[in-house]
């Protein structure tokens, strides 16, 4: 209280009683209308004068006024006492309980000793600022080991931490943390980092120290790649992918650092494939997945060429992607009529006079209006100079081995993606224009034109082109049975060496305001006023 300034903060529990103060003027009215003294005839007044002179002073108007004021003050004090005056002062910040949560899940088992030691240190430091409760995170929830008001020493309680077991269920953990005192501070001691926005991220997390390189691994997805199932894995180094299917039984493929594991799969395979990482890691939820592989089919190819193309035909057959029953040669002049029934049209040695209709094309020494590729010069010698494309199927091509004996010179314009360059112009180009998707080989696919058909890269190039042009055909859909299971449930990585400063917990809340009743003060004043009024009356001041 600062002088009388606190009077501004006085409030009342029952302010309705204050309305009675309006009756104060009534006291003055009552005084003015007070009962007049009754007349008493006495036989001899001097006797009364003698008595009164020895007992009192003559009442004065001032004393009468003082008496009225005292009575008014008495009435006001009584009204104030009934109204229940009080003042509230803000309470100092109260010490809050620190909940030290020790990670005792199975995933933290390898770091049990580090977690225990770090928990003891954190608890000891927190105990300097207030009460400490020790909690074990185990079996998907929290288990109290030592309450805040427990008298046992902290180091003794740390020894009572349960052995690591149980999974790390984030939802259960979130509910358990929410059940703790919201005014308290939560510090989690764990050997792992925590994902953003997770329940642990909202608490203060203290690293317990962990070994390097330990991370959660799992199966993240799978796609068909012709005769293989490409399985994307994460953190599976040193482990293997076990594929099981009714068609082929069990296959184990070691995982490498690339993150993709190729599981051999017959090109006509379809059905469910079960995948599992071996061995499983402490987060087994994402270490297994099942995929339904849709039935695949081959590419229907139409070849429109004026002459024989034995090298091209051989490369098409060697790709393993061409559906021989649905593929064939078409009249070069009438290929447009049959193109709709094929997946890919191969045009050899002709420049179309009209734009290509929508579709997928493999152009060999051919072009068409509207494409960003134009023939500019007649056949001449050339040689490959550089491989620009990054496609895997192009990686086997050595430009130095590709010699062009006789080929036209083409020029590529904007929109053409040159995959192989030559000294006279582009040799292999990726073209996309509207609904036309094409690869263009500016060199005839004959041994007479170049050494390309003789290179082992040629059939791979053909296969790669077919895969690019018709992926749905050559790579049927692979659908995960449980897509949610592919997500890492609680992907964590170990903390780097050194402790991380715990996140700032909730700020210390001030306690509830302290209410100080002023009733006792008012009653004391009331008593003083009563004594004063009695004293005045006793002195005969009242009249």
């Amino acid at each position, binding site marked *: 209280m600062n002088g009388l300034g606190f009077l501004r903060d006085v409030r009342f529990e029952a302010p309705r009683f204050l309305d009675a103060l309006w009756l104060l003027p009534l006291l003055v009215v009552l005084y003015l209308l007070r009962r007049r003294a009754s007349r*008493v*005839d*006495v036989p001899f*007044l001097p006797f009364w004068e003698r008595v009164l002179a020895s007992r009192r002073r003559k*009442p004065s108007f001032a004393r009468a006024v003082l008496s009225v004021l005292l009575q008014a003050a008495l009435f006001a004090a009584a009204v104030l006492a009934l109204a229940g005056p009080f003042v509230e002062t803000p309470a100092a910040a109260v010490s809050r309980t620190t909940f030290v949560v020790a990670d005792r899940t199975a995933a933290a088992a390898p770091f049990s000793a580090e977690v225990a030691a770090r928990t003891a240190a954190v608890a000891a430091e927190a105990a300097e600022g207030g009460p400490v409760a020790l909690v074990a995170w185990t079996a998907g929830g929290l288990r109290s080991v030592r309450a805040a008001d427990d008298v046992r020493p902290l180091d003794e309680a740390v020894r009572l931490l349960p052995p690591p077991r149980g999974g790390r269920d984030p939802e259960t953990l979130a509910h358990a943390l929410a059940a703790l005192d919201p005014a308290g501070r939560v510090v989690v001691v764990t050997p792992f980092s925590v994902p953003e926005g997770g329940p642990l991220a909202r608490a203060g997390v203290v690293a317990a120290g962990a070994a390097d390189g330990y991370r959660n691994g799992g199966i993240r997805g799978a796609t068909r790649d012709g005769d293989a199932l490409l399985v994307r894995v994460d953190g599976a180094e040193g482990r293997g992918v076990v594929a099981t299917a009714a068609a082929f039984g069990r296959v184990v493929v070691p995982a490498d650092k690339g993150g993709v594991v190729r599981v051999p799969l017959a090109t006509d395979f379809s059905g469910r494939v079960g995948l599992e990482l071996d061995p499983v890691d402490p987060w087994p939820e994402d270490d297994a997945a099942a995929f339904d592989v849709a039935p695949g089919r081959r590419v229907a190819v139409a070849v429109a060429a004026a002459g024989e193309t034995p090298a091209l035909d051989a490369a098409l057959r060697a790709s393993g992607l061409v559906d021989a029953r649905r593929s064939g040669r078409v009249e070069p002049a009438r290929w447009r009529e049959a193109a709709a029934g094929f997946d890919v049209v191969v045009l050899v040695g002709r420049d179309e006079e009209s734009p290509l209709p929508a579709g997928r094309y493999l152009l060999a020494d051919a072009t068409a209006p509207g494409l960003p590729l134009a023939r500019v010069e007649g056949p001449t010698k050339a040689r490959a100079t550089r491989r620009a494309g990054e496609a895997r199927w192009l990686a086997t091509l050595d430009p130095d081995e590709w010699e062009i004996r006789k080929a036209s010179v083409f020029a590529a314009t904007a929109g053409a993606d040159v995959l192989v360059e030559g000294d006279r112009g582009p040799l292999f180009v990726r073209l996309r224009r509207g609904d036309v998707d094409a690869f263009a080989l500016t060199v005839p696919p004959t041994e007479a034109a170049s050494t390309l058909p003789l290179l082992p890269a040629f059939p791979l190039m053909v296969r790669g082109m077919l895969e690019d042009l018709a992926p749905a055909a050559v790579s049927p859909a692979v659908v995960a049975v449980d897509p949610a299971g592919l997500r890492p449930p609680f992907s964590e990585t170990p903390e780097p060496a050194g402790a991380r400063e715990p996140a700032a917990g909730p700020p210390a809340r001030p306690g509830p305001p302290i209410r100080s009743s002023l009733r006792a003060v008012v009653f004391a004043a009331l008593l003083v006023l009563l004594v004063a009024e009695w004293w005045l009356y006793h002195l005969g001041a*009242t*009249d």
Partner: protein
Amino acid sequence: MTAAAVLADAARELLDPAFVARLERLELNVRRLLGGERRGDVPMNRRGPGVLFRGHRRYVAGDDPRFIDWNAYLRLGELVLKEFDAEESARLTLFLDASASMTAGGGVKFAQALRLAAALGFVALARHVPVRFVPLPGPGGEATFDGKGRVGALLAALAATKPGAKTGFLRAFQAAAPAGRAPGVALVVSDFYDVDEYAAGIKFLRRRGFHVEALHLFTPDELRAETLGPVLLRDLESGRTLRATLRPDLVLAYRETVERHFAEVAGQCRATGAGYHRLDAREPLESLVLATLRARNVVR
């Protein structure tokens, strides 16, 4: 003449006829009042012939043989002598306080004073003792009555006395008992609130040779206050007022003051050789006269 015959209608208010019949059997104990049974600072040795028989004594040589009671000699065989009170001393003066203070208590005190004076006056007149009625403070209103036939006049005079004046004992006594006038017995019926003059007045009467009997009338109401709290006290005689707030302690202190005054009056009377009798005015008159005053030998 019967008692009823002598009482006028107005006088009937003062004395009950039945009480009057009983009063006829009383007499003032003049001998005691006038005799030497009381000591005082005014010696009284007056003896000798008179109309009031006082008693017998043995005859000794030298006594006047005219007063030998021969009837007693025939009965007793002894010579005894009759003795009589002096005629001049057998006079009753009734001083009646008619001041305003006598009306305190609703007039009960004054009414009782009138009745008391009437009773004693009747007793005196019935025994052929002249009665002089002197209302205080006077002047005026005095009258002398002699003989039983004047009882009615005495009662009428008493009934006609109205209170309201201011007391003044000394001046009134001085006026009523000038030098040379025969004294006798003086009955002062008053409330004795004339604190300034009552003592001097009593002394004056005693020096004049009166045998004074102070009949101090009071009412219990004078010793207490019926009203507490704020009051306006008014003196009945002077009319002065005093505003006060009466509390029990003040009332008690007032009672003590009045009691002290009463004791002072008694002391002054006795110191001057006067008789003092405090009488409760609310007590029935018959009890006052037939019991109290008789027990104190004022009447017999």
